[in-house]
C-alpha cells in the first residue's frame, strides 16, 4: 500500500481497509461521491483508490468553488478591474483561472492593478490604505468562506468605507448536490459529505438526502483514516438498507453548525433566483448576492457588468468532469492541451480541481508505469 508508512496509525489504517474489504459485498458495485474538492485532493494524494476494493467507486463531485464558475463571470470581474483607479483583489487560487481575454495574472502583466489577498478583510484593508482607489474583491467560495466575506462587508458598512465593493460569486452546496441527484447521468449510492462547509452549515441541511433520496451521507474529515472510516460507515448503512446523516468529523463539525457564521450570512446575503454553474447549468437559489442594504458595496450594482455568457472551449469537457460523468483523464484535452502549466479550464488550475489533483498524482504515476513497462 502506497504511503501507508507516512500515515498516523498505520495499523489502524490497515485494519480499517480490511474492514472495508470485509463489508463490501462482492456482487455489488458501490458508487460513492465525495462532494468537496479537498476530499478529491486527499483521495489522490493518499492513493485511497488503491486501498479500496475494485467494487467501490469514488466519484468526484462539484465542490470546487473556482471550477464551477463559468468563464463569463471571470470576464465580468475583470471588466470592472479594467476601469481606471480600480484595484482587483482576489485569492491566489483565482489568479491563473482563464477568462476569454486571459487570467487575472495575465491582466496584471498587461498593466491592470491586480493584487493577491489571503483574506477578505485584507481586501478591505487595501481600500483603507488606498483612499483614492476603489478596491473590488472577487469573492468566491462555498459556505466555508461566505461568512468571512459577510463579516467583512458588515465592517465596511459600519466604518463607512465607500471605496470597496465585492463581486460576489459565493455558491451554496446543497443545490449542487440536488442537481447531481436530479441529473439523469448520475447513479449514486452514497455521499462523503464536505468537511469544512459543514463547520458552518452543520449536518442538518443534508437530512433531505437521507430522508427523501434515501442515500446515506457521512460528513468526513480529511485524513486518510477519516475518509476510510467514513467509507466503513457508509458501507454499514448501505448493507443494512439504511439512509442517515452521520458525522465522522465530530471533532471539528458541530451538528448545528456555526450560528454566528450563519447570522452574518443572513444579514448580508440573499439567494439569487438562479445562477449558472459550469457543468450543471442554471440552478435556482444556488448562489448568494448582497442584500439591498449592502447595495453600495455590491460591485454588480456599482459597476456595469457585461454579463455575457461564455461557453467553454468546444473540446474541453470541464462540465462533465465536474458532474462526475467523466474522470479527469477521460477529457480529450487532459494532459495534452490542458496541463497545470497551460490550463484550459479552472479544474486544472484550482487546488481543489479534480483535474489538477489527478494530474499531480495519478498521471505521473501512470507515466512512470508506462515508461517502466517499456523498459522491462
Amino acid at each position, binding site marked *: 500500500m502506497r*504511503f501507508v508508512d*507516512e*500515515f*498516523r496509525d498505520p495499523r489502524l489504517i490497515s485494519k480499517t481497509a480490511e474492514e472495508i474489504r470485509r463489508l463490501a459485498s462482492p456482487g455489488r458495485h458501490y458508487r460513492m461521491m465525495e462532494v*468537496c*474538492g*479537498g476530499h478529491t*485532493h*486527499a483521495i489522490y*494524494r*493518499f492513493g485511497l483508490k488503491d486501498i479500496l476494493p475494485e467494487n467501490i467507486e469514488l466519484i468526484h463531485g462539484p465542490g470546487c468553488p473556482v471550477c464551477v464558475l463559468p468563464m463569463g463571470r471571470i470576464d465580468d470581474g475583470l471588466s470592472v478591474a479594467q476601469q481606471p483607479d480600480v484595484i482587483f483583489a482576489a*485569492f*491566489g487560487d483565482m489568479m491563473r483561472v482563464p477568462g476569454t481575454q486571459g487570467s487575472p495574472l495575465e491582466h496584471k502583466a498587461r498593466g491592470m492593478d491586480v*493584487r*493577491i*489577498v*489571503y*483574506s*477578505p*478583510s*485584507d481586501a478591505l*484593508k*487595501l481600500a483603507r*490604505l488606498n483612499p483614492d482607489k476603489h478596491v473590488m474583491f472577487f469573492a468566491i*467560495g*462555498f459556505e*466555508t*468562506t461566505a*461568512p*468571512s466575506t459577510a*463579516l467583512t462587508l458588515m465592517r465596511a458598512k459600519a466604518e463607512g468605507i465607500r471605496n470597496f465593493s465585492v463581486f460576489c460569486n459565493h455558491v451554496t452546496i446543497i443545490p449542487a448536490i440536488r442537481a447531481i441527484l436530479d441529473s439523469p447521468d448520475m447513479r449514486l449510492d452514497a455521499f462523503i459529505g464536505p*468537511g*469544512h*462547509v459543514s*463547520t*458552518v452549515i452543520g449536518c442538518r441541511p443534508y437530512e433531505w438526502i437521507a430522508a427523501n433520496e434515501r442515500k446515506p451521507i457521512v460528513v468526513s474529515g*480529511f*485524513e*486518510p483514516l477519516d475518509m476510510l472510516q467514513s467509507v466503513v460507515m457508509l458501507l454499514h448503512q448501505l448493507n443494512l438498507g439504511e439512509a442517515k446523516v452521520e458525522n465522522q468529523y465530530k*471533532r*471539528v463539525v*458541530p451538528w448545528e453548525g*456555526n*450560528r*454566528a*457564521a450563519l447570522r*452574518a450570512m443572513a444579514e448580508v446575503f440573499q439567494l439569487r433566483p438562479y445562477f449558472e454553474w459550469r457543468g450543471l447549468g442554471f440552478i435556482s437559489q444556488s448562489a448568494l448576492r448582497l442584500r439591498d442594504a449592502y447595495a453600495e458595496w455590491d460591485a454588480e450594482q456599482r459597476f456595469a457588468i457585461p454579463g455575457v455568457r461564455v461557453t467553454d472551449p468546444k473540446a474541453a469537457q470541464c462540465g462533465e468532469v465536474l458532474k462526475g460523468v467523466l474522470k479527469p483523464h477521460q477529457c480529450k484535452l487532459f494532459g495534452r492541451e490542458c496541463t497545470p502549466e497551460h490550463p484550459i479550464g479552472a479544474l486544472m488550475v484550482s*487546488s*481543489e480541481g479534480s483535474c489538477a489533483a489527478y494530474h499531480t498524482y495519478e498521471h505521473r504515476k501512470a507515466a512512470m508505469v508506462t515508461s517502466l513497462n517499456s523498459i522491462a
Partner: protein
Amino acid sequence: MCLAIPGKIVEISSVNQDSALVDVVGVRRKIDLGLLQDDKPVPGDWVLIHVGFAMSKISAQDATDQMNTLRMLGEIESAEQEAQGYGLEDVQ
C-alpha cells in the same frame, strides 16, 4: 482543500474583541474572531483558521493532526504563504 490552518491564540486585542494575535504556521498574525462570537476563545486555545477568520475551536491534538494532514497533502507551503500574507504583511 478549503485550507484550514490551525493557530494558537496568543492574546485578544484590548481595542477590538473580535481580533486576536495568533501563532499560525510559524508567524504571528492578527486573526478575526468574529465567527466565534458565541464561543469566544481565550489565549492558549487552538482554532482552525480559514481565510484569516477563526472557524472553530479545536484541541491541541487536533491542531497537531491538522498540521500533519496539511503536510501529507503537500499543502504546508500554501498554508505558510497564506498565513504570511495575512494582514498584507508580505504583499504590497
